[in-house]
């Protein structure tokens, strides 16, 4: 736990990528294999199922710290991080634990799964007493599952590659799929023989950057394949050894949520991997993505939901054919093979190619995107291989211009984590007659400097307090950008927007210049309405 707590502190103390990778590499190279495996799991966001309820954890910490509940609440509010609040409030540490990380996890934490509350409480309190403050913090982060330390999976992969001497692609590949942290996994992860047996394993996804600069700079349009950019769940559909697997880009095995795709797999030839977007799809067109959310949360999929919200995979690439990795072949080749294997009339729809003779013509067709319920275009170089991770050059996404609206800041509340002591979370209103109605919440888009200025405004112009939320004088106007708009009976404005963010602070506008609900309603799609 010592080395792990030090690693956490080292990662936390630098903003420099190379220093983070160095700290990780040193850690992986110096700790026991089982520790390295568990640390890898935590750092890339895999964690044991949450064993302990926050409420109980807080209760035990409160008792151990000897403070009243309300004071814990005040402290949490000031810190903005649950694990940290507990670490700061516990009585000063009298010792420091030299037990390794995997012992803490395997022998002290996981057995609590089958324990009653009394045993859990005793184990937790004893753990806190054995640890120093840094260790308590890292431990609390582990048990609360809020393990974020500003390290992306790709940095972890770089460090693992450096520590093991393997290629980053091999490491990425081996980190996918189902595995149980422990010494055995570490041996497989770092094995020199890179022929991997696990038939379920997907390939690392190739991701596109948003288009930079002008479209004409991409050169001759004939060198490019253009597709609609579908808004679904990015997934790989795998058929190997007579079995079907569906993996999300979050590297989660999601086969059991989509029986339609399981059935599709049986119609595919042996040894294929297709890449695409899983979409709620009915009568030849996508349903609003909100419909998909009705399905995702469910454990049991009844016949009703399956018939109301059927899914399909809009496939756009083929990565493996007859068991052979074809990612290095040109897109043109892979696409032709995909068209050959897609069973007609099945839940696999080959993503249509958008034809345009010139970039200009394509730009015109971009306006169809909204009515087609797509997010814009994907632009792919016809001779490109299927690469690993987010890369510039061969694939670009060209989104439709988002909607935008001018709205007035009406409520603010403090953020979390590193933004905990600033008012960074805002609610915006638009005019309904002479009243401002809450319309959207947004947290992102401002520079740190702007956030400071808004924060100072909020403090100086609070009109009312509701717990952490401040009502402020309606004076500041912001241009909000968002991706989608729907009617919503659950919102006071009657409208819900997707991915709202602050595009610009309109210091040139007064509150009275902001948009009205009426003009916003005009943006609503006139055709099909979601049932939700």
């Amino acid at each position, binding site marked *: 736990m010592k080395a792990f707590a030090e690693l956490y502190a080292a990662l936390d103390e630098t903003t420099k990528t190379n220093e983070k990778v160095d700290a990780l590499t040193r850690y992986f190279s110096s700790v026991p294999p089982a520790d390295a495996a568990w640390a890898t799991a935590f750092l890339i966001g895999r964690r044991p199922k949450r064993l302990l309820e926050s409420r109980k954890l807080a209760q035990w910490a409160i008792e151990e710290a000897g403070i009243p509940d309300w004071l814990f609440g*005040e402290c949490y509010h000031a810190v903005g991080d649950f694990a940290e609040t507990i670490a700061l409030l516990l009585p000063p540490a009298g010792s420091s634990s030299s037990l390794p990380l995997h012992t803490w996890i395997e022998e002290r934490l996981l057995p609590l799964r089958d324990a009653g509350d009394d045993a859990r409480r005793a184990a937790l309190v004893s753990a806190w007493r054995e640890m120093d403050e840094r260790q308590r913090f890292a431990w609390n982060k582990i048990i609360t599952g809020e393990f974020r330390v500003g390290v992306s999976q790709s940095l972890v992969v770089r460090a693992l590659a450096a520590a093991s001497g393997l290629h980053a692609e091999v490491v990425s590949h081996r980190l996918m799929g189902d595995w149980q942290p422990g010494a055995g996994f570490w041996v497989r992860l770092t094995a020199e023989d890179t022929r991997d047996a696990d038939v379920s394993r997907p390939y690392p996804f190739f991701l596109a950057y948003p288009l930079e600069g002008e479209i004409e700079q991409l050169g001759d349009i004939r060198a490019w394949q253009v597709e609609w950019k579908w808004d679904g769940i990015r997934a790989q559909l795998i058929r190997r050894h007579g079995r079907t697997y569906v993996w999300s880009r979050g590297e989660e095995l999601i086969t059991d949520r989509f029986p339609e795709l399981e059935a599709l797999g049986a119609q595919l030839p042996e040894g294929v991997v297709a890449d695409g977007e899983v979409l709620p799809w009915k009568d030849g067109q996508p349903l609003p993505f909100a419909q998909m959310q009705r399905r995702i949360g469910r454990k049991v999929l009844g016949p009703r939901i399956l018939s109301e919200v059927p899914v399909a995979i809009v496939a756009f690439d083929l990565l493996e054919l007859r068991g052979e990795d074809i990612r290095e072949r040109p897109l043109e080749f892979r696409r032709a093979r995909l068209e050959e294997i897609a069973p007609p009339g099945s839940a696999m729809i080959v993503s249509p190619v958008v034809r345009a003779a010139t970039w200009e013509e394509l730009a015109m067709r971009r306006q169809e995107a909204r009515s087609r319920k797509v997010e814009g275009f994907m632009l792919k170089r016809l001779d490109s291989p299927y690469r690993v991770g987010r890369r510039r050059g061969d694939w670009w996404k060209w989104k439709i211009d988002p909607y935008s609206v001018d709205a007035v800041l009406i409520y603010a509340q403090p953020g979390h984590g590193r933004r905990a002591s600033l008012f960074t979370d805002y609610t915006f209103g638009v005019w309904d007659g002479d009243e401002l109605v809450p319309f959207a919440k947004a947290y992102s888009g401002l520079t740190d400097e702007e956030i400071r200025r808004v924060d100072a405004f909020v403090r100086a112009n609070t009109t009312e307090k509701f717990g952490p939320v401040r009502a402020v004088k309606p004076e500041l106007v912001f241009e909000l950008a968002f991706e989608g708009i729907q009617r919503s009976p659950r919102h006071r404005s009657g409208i819900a927007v997707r991915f709202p963010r602050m595009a610009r602070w309109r210091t040139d506008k007064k509150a009275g210049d902001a948009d009205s609900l009426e003009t916003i309603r005009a943006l609503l799609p006139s055709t099909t309405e979601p049932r939700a």
Partner: protein
Amino acid sequence: MGGEAAIQTLAYGEPLTLDGVRVSLHPAGHILGSAQVRIEGHGETWVFSGDYKLEPDPTCAPFEPVPCETFVTESTFGLPIYCWPPAVEVFADIQAWWTANQQAGKASVLFAYSLGKAQRALAGLDPALGPIYTHGAVESFNRLYREAGIALPLTTHAGDAPASTDWSRALILAPPSANGSPWLRRFRPFSAGLASGWMRIRGARRRRSLDRGFVLSDHADWGGLLSAIRSSGAGRVWVTHGYRAPMVEWLKQQGYEAQAIEARFEAEQDEAEAAP
């Protein structure tokens, strides 16, 4: 205070009588010359703490508990999450950071409030580790401290150093406001740390994109506030500045007659976050 203000100085403990009210100043342990104000009259004794701390500080007189019926206390860090580590440990951390930076060929830029904190930091550092440079704002207060007889290690105003100076072994003391300013460019590559009580919270450090935060405050922590309140013997406590509401609530639950009073400079706690 404007230049026209009539200023009368008073030694610690020396009484002054104004309209039958007896006024005296007592060490607050905050910075050099900081004082609590004791006021006795009409059969009552009040003490206004001002900013104070209880930890020993070689650059100023230690906090002196002054018995009173009503104690008006600051509460900048009035939450139990604010619990200071012993200063010796903090100085050891700063020195270890400085040494590690030297080994990595980087300068060490330590941000500390130029009046008080910078001098306390200086007094705690071992000048044998390497040269110590200062920002002009820090250097002018160093001069005042030295004139007042406070021993501080040798410092050089960074502005007087030749352009060819090798900063890689140096520690540079600068006010927090220098963070992100072009003045810092000359020290590159460097690691930046801040000495402040706010550094107890991770988010406060990360928000400033600092490499290191050192928990060193010239204000009392939660335990210090409670201890000062107890040792005043006061039954009535007025709380001002910082986390007033939780402190008042806590004191009430402990049987004190407590209330929050509006601070005159309300913005101070947030604006001057880096200062304490």
